[in-house]
């Protein structure tokens, strides 16, 4: 579904690589978590695979289509929800989703069925014909998700999807992620929330300073329970270790 091979990304005017030699392979029907601290290279990787950023070297294939050589077909199979919840706010919710449905060439029958289903699932019925600029943070996130799913993409990519959402909205989005995978599709999302990732993901990759540290199968016994400690061990800096010693002295976190 998604195949990243030896991805390298260096920004213009930067001396260091933001992503170095990253390789991933996602299977159909799985929820894949992408973990890392702030600035680890999660968003950069996601922006490369969605076609937002060009990359230095490596290959990214979505459903077998190379994002650089055949971007139209690759993007046709992907839905993306950004971390900033940015959408065209002068349009109404329905206009925005219809715009994307036109772009992804979704038939009228299919778009109406999916639109009604998602609007009901995300409880947005009262707001779909109102301009998006009046939406709350969570509502913008939900309309962004509906827009990303209107063409029923095989790969659904979400960058920090739960940031700033209330508990109920998080549950609604998680349910949609499960349902999407049940239909044979794949979900790839980045997060800081280890607890959430350990509960919903089939596999996770941890990235630090642009380098892939490990990929963990959470169906293997014990991996779910040790995910947090593994993550902390991998991503801890020297300062973190000093802080931890201080915490130990003062008994914090016991």
């Amino acid at each position, binding site marked *: 579904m998604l195949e990243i091979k030896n991805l390298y990304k260096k*920004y*213009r005017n930067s001396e260091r690589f933001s992503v170095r030699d990253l390789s991933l392979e996602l299977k159909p029907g799985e929820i894949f978590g992408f973990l890392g601290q702030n600035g680890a290279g999660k968003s950069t990787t996601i922006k490369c695979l*969605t*076609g*937002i*950023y*060009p990359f230095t070297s490596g290959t990214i294939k979505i459903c077998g289509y190379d994002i650089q050589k055949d*971007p*139209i*077909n*690759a*993007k*046709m199979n*992907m839905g*993306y929800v*950004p971390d*900033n919840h*940015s*959408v*065209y*706010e*002068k*349009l*109404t919710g*329905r*206009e925005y989703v*219809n*715009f*994307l*449905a*036109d*772009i*992804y*060439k979704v*038939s*009228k029958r299919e*778009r*109406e069925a999916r*639109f009604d289903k998602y609007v009901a699932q995300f409880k947005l019925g009262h707001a779909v*014909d*109102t*301009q*998006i*600029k*009046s939406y709350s943070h969570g509502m913008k996130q939900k309309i962004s998700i509906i827009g990303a799913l209107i063409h029923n993409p095989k790969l659904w990519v979400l960058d920090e999807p739960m940031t700033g959402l209330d508990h109920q909205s998080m549950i609604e989005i998680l349910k949609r992620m499960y349902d999407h995978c049940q239909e044979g599709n794949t979900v790839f999302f980045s997060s800081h929330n280890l607890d959430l990732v350990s509960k919903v993901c089939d596999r996770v990759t941890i990235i630090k300073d642009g380098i892939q540290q490990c990929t963990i199968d959470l169906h293997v016994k014990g991996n779910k329970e040790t995910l947090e400690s593994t993550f902390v061990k991998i991503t801890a800096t020297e300062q973190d270790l000093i802080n931890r010693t201080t915490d130990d002295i003062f008994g914090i976190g016991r």
Partner: protein
Amino acid sequence: MGRKKHPVLTLLKLEFVNKFGTVSLKDGKSVFKSLFYIIGVGALMVALYYVSIIFFNMFERAGILYEALVLVYGVVFAFLCITGVSSTSKVLYYKGDNEILMRFPIKPIHMFVSKTLFLILTQLGLVMVVLVPLLVGYAAVTEVGISYYVRIPISILFCVLIPFFIANVFAIPGTHLANKIKNKHGLIIILFTIVVSLFFAIYMLLFDSMVQFLKDTEFSVFSPEVVKIIKDVCKYLIPIKYLADMMVLNELYIAYPVLINLTALTLIGTILVIVKLYQKTLLGNIEAEGSAFKKVTKNKVRPVFLSLMNKEFLEIFRSVNYSFQYFVLACAMPLMVFFCNRITLALAKNQVGEQITLGITLLVMLIFTTIICSFSATSISREGNNVYHIKIIPVSPLTQLAAKFTMYFIVSFVANVVCIAVIIFTKQLEVKQAFGAFGVVQACSIALTLFSMRRDIVKPYFNLSGEGELVANNVNTTMSVGIGLLIALVIGVGAMFIGYLVAVETALYYSLGVAGGLLILSFLTYFTRLKHRFDYIGT
């Protein structure tokens, strides 16, 4: 411990810093900016002084100098009332900082007083810059005593206070009206087009009269009928005529009591409105600013290209700011071109001859086309945080950019067609020349659109504010206007010279040649490594 500053003064300082920025004598750039500003204002005052001398002389020749003074006060008064309603409504009720300030323990009265003082002081500055040169210009045309100059500050005071109080009374109904029509985008465009066209027409007619007067100072630009109308209008222009009366010492026993009573009455009205409605309207507006309209639509299926164009159109159409910059100017362009052309042609034909009419028409049309086309210099920048959409959607960069281009092309094409139709209909140009001029202007507008879009693809500026819109001019727009004006000069002035020295036909071929060359160059520039440039947008 230093003395605690009164909250009103702190808030007033904040208003000034917000509006004009801070001036530091240690910062060279800041000093240079301030000096530039002062010199600009000084130059404007001098220009107004000389224009007012021509203006008053024109009226004096017709024996209606007093009426000219009444009209000057009338225009200034009306302008201050209208802009006063708008600025009062913006500063007191709409401004974004209201929401911020209301979170702090600041008394509404302090907020109101600081904002009111800010409005009065800025109004005072504006009136001084405009009215002082005009009144001094009046004194240069006719004999006035030394006391005339003493009365200038008194007249300025009335001119600031009365319109300000009137504006305050009307600001709340004005605000409610603005909220009511806020989402009626078509109506806003029509209203703005009418207002812009009307102001431009009046301005150009006045300019035309002054030019005629300058050419023959013995000649009166006003017919006896017009003189009678002006006299009648000024007689009933109450209370404005009393400001003029005060200056020329006419019926002072009526003028002063009327002006003083009017100031008191409007002040009472303002106080009543503020006490009863300020806080309520303020809260209501904070809510209304974020409000959006509801529009029930069907899930309509459109082809990709049309959907992209539709999205682009709605994003512009539903923004008052963008609509004004683009649609309103495009709608008003034929009228502006007609008036400009008529005056410059009348002037030039008498001085040089008909050979330069094509060149002048091209110059005028290209200047207005430049203003309209410069909007395409923000085609990518306007996407702001939504720029990721153009990168993730499965539509080739060429198609996406072509949809944007097509919308700009349609607008400029329609504006140019109407312009040329007006020019042919009013016989400002021969039909053959008019079609030639259309070809030149159309080619240049395509070239300029492509240059501007290319520039914005290479270096977009995503500095959006408020409701996610570009408010301040960015470098791309400035560059686009600069290039457009240069093209207008090269083609327009070149065609004038060639038309005068060789033949009009040769001037047309010259213009078509330059425009064709620009068109080819713009296509070459636009398509060079376009995909590569597109890939790097927003990275």
